[in-house]
């Protein structure tokens, strides 16, 4: 078996190309069948997400898998000949394993550390298995990839840092409220940034969205996007006590929320925590509001600092993750080599066992009638002799796995014991 991985991702191909190559979930099984029907390819897996399309195959030794996959991708995606070539990457053997482990651990993702990719690979593997395209080789490899990804996630903090401003806002909201399920958010000012943050919050399961904006039509438009309600700007303050998260992004030249008008709001909330996100420049919320009890006010710079800190942390975490992956790649290569040597060891044992039985049979006719006791002694003698002679070559074979002299040792054993080719 030899592993090959080829495909394209967000770094090598623009979205216009990626969307053409992407595989449809409905026809995935047919595509998998088509892939494994190609001569020379034994097992295959198709990973197709919005950021990458990758084909992983286990091919026969010496097959031109690279060419096979490229042709397959071109024919499957209706991209005219040659257009794909510049965007494809191809890895084989150790490199392919390394790449797979990095992808599974989300080191190759657009947002490094995002958690979805592992689930996508698991789904791709399940599809390949149920289509009969993935067998022992891929099972062995993918199972390992899943546990490597898990190890990276538990031993580093790569998955726990927020990168974008709006993502950071959601993370902070989680740190304050825990579950966002029945929390209410109010967008004060309907800018692009607050829309983005609201979208993130919505995806994290926020309960209700209120929108208030000077231009009512824009507020209505935005409320419709989030299935929320429009609040009249005059009634903003009276609606605020029921709001858990407020995002301000209006173009007002003065503070909309001050310490003085927030104090009664907090009293009405009975000091339940409130998270204020001020992404407007100039700012919409007086900084002194943060001094009120149970109010957590973050302006755009505070959020920026959170993001920056997370990015820094993420770089060092990524280094750690790469080290883990390198270590795991070495481990799995050793095990793959060990798997290769297994047929030879079995053959060796069978050869010696055959000799033992034949000799025993031959000698028995010569010796004539033996008592059961004598028979047992002779049997034990031959058996222990065979085991002693096998011990040396077998432990040498096992010890040389993965080392440069491994292939040579295997060849010598093969010749000495007359094992032929295997």
């Amino acid at each position: 078996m030899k592993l090959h991985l080829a495909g394209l991702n967000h770094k090598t191909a623009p979205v216009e190309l990626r969307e053409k190559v992407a595989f449809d979930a409905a026809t995935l099984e047919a595509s998998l069948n088509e892939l494994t029907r190609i001569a020379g390819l034994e097992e295959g897996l198709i990973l197709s997400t919005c950021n990458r399309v990758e084909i992983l195959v286990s091919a026969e030794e010496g097959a031109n898998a690279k060419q096979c996959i490229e042709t397959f991708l071109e024919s499957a995606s209706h991209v005219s000949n040659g257009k794909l070539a510049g965007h494809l990457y191809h890895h084989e053997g150790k490199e392919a394993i390394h790449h797979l482990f990095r992808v599974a651990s989300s080191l190759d993702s657009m947002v490094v550390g995002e958690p979805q990719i592992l689930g996508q690979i698991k789904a791709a593997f399940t599809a390949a298995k149920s289509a009969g395209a993935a067998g022992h080789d891929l099972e062995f490899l993918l199972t390992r990839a899943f546990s490597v990804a898990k190890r990276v996630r538990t031993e580093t903090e790569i998955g726990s840092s927020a990168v974008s401003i709006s993502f950071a806002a959601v993370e902070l909201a989680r740190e304050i409220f825990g579950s966002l399920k029945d929390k209410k958010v109010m967008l004060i000012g309907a800018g692009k940034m607050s829309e983005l943050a609201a979208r993130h919050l919505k995806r994290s399961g926020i309960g209700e969205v209120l929108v208030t904006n000077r231009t009512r039509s824009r507020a209505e438009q935005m409320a419709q996007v989030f299935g929320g309600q429009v609040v009249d700007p005059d009634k903003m303050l009276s609606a605020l006590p029921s709001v858990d998260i407020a995002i301000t992004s209006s173009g007002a030249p003065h503070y909309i929320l001050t310490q003085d008008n927030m104090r009664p709001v907090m009293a009405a909330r009975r000091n339940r925590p409130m998270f204020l996100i001020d992404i407007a420049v100039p700012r919409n919320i007086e900084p002194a509001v943060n001094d009120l009890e149970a109010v957590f006010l973050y302006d755009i710079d505070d959020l920026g600092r959170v993001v920056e800190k997370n990015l820094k942390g993420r770089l060092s975490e990524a280094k750690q993750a790469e080290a883990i992956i390198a270590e795991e790649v070495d481990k799995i290569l050793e095990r793959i080599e060990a798997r290769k040597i297994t047929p030879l060891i079995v053959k060796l044992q069978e050869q010696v066992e055959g000799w033992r039985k034949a000799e025993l049979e031959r000698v028995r006719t010569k010796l004539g009638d033996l008592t059961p006791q004598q028979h047992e002694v002779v049997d034990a003698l031959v058996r222990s002799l065979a085991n002693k002679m096998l011990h040396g070559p077998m432990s040498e074979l096992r010890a040389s796995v993965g080392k440069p002299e491994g292939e040579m040792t295997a060849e010598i054993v093969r010749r000495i014991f007359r094992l032929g080719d295997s």
Partner: protein
Amino acid sequence: MWSLFWLRVAAALYSLGLLQTLLTLFRRGEKLAAPARTAFSLGVVLHFVSLVERGFAIGHLPTTSVYESLSLCAYFLALTHLLIAKWYSFPSLSFVVFPIVFLLTSLASTEIPTAGWADPGLRSAWLNAHILLVTFGYAAIVVTAASAVFYLLQERHLKAKAVGGLFRNLPPLGTLDSLTSKAMAIGFVLITLGFFTGSAWAFVESGSRWLSEPKVHVSLITWLFYLLIMYLRVAAGWRGRRAAFLAVYLLLFSGLTWVSHSGLRPLLER
């Protein structure tokens, strides 16, 4: 002596009010609210009967002994509460008044020592129940205080906007707040039951002497402080930072009470 009998009946009626207070903590108070109010008013009437009888029996205003003044004080408190409830809308006041009236009235009704334990098995079972209730109550208070300390740390960290680092793995603020209030409420129920079972035990055990024990005073103060905290939380909406500080003080008070009671043991092994 009929006066004492009526006082005890009144105390029994007031106990419904205490139960109502405990249930309020778990938002189960509505069902009992009306019966507790009726029982309380009935208690006030019988309490008055008890006072009048006592007055006639001794021929003057019953304020000469500690018990008499306790009874009178409890009566006026209960009466005032009824009037306030009639004139103002102040429903949360009953949260503290009910337990305190019950406490004072039952203290006043311990004037004459009982005959002692009918059965030694009951004595030790009663004592064990008291010890278990209080010990579990202490455990709940420790949980409350620990979660309150985490709350204060997490709050400080969020206010300082120093995201990441040491505090990353703390639970969210909301989770800590709800843990604090749940543990605090459970602790209050256990400590209240423990406090009253303990008082009853001490009363039966040592007659009227028990009131002069300093550790009884310490427990009484701790329990009243606990009641006050719960009131602030339920009625005044004290939560978050202030409630967290109160929870830490509560642990200190309870520690003091426990220390004063660990001296009890040699006394029990008689």
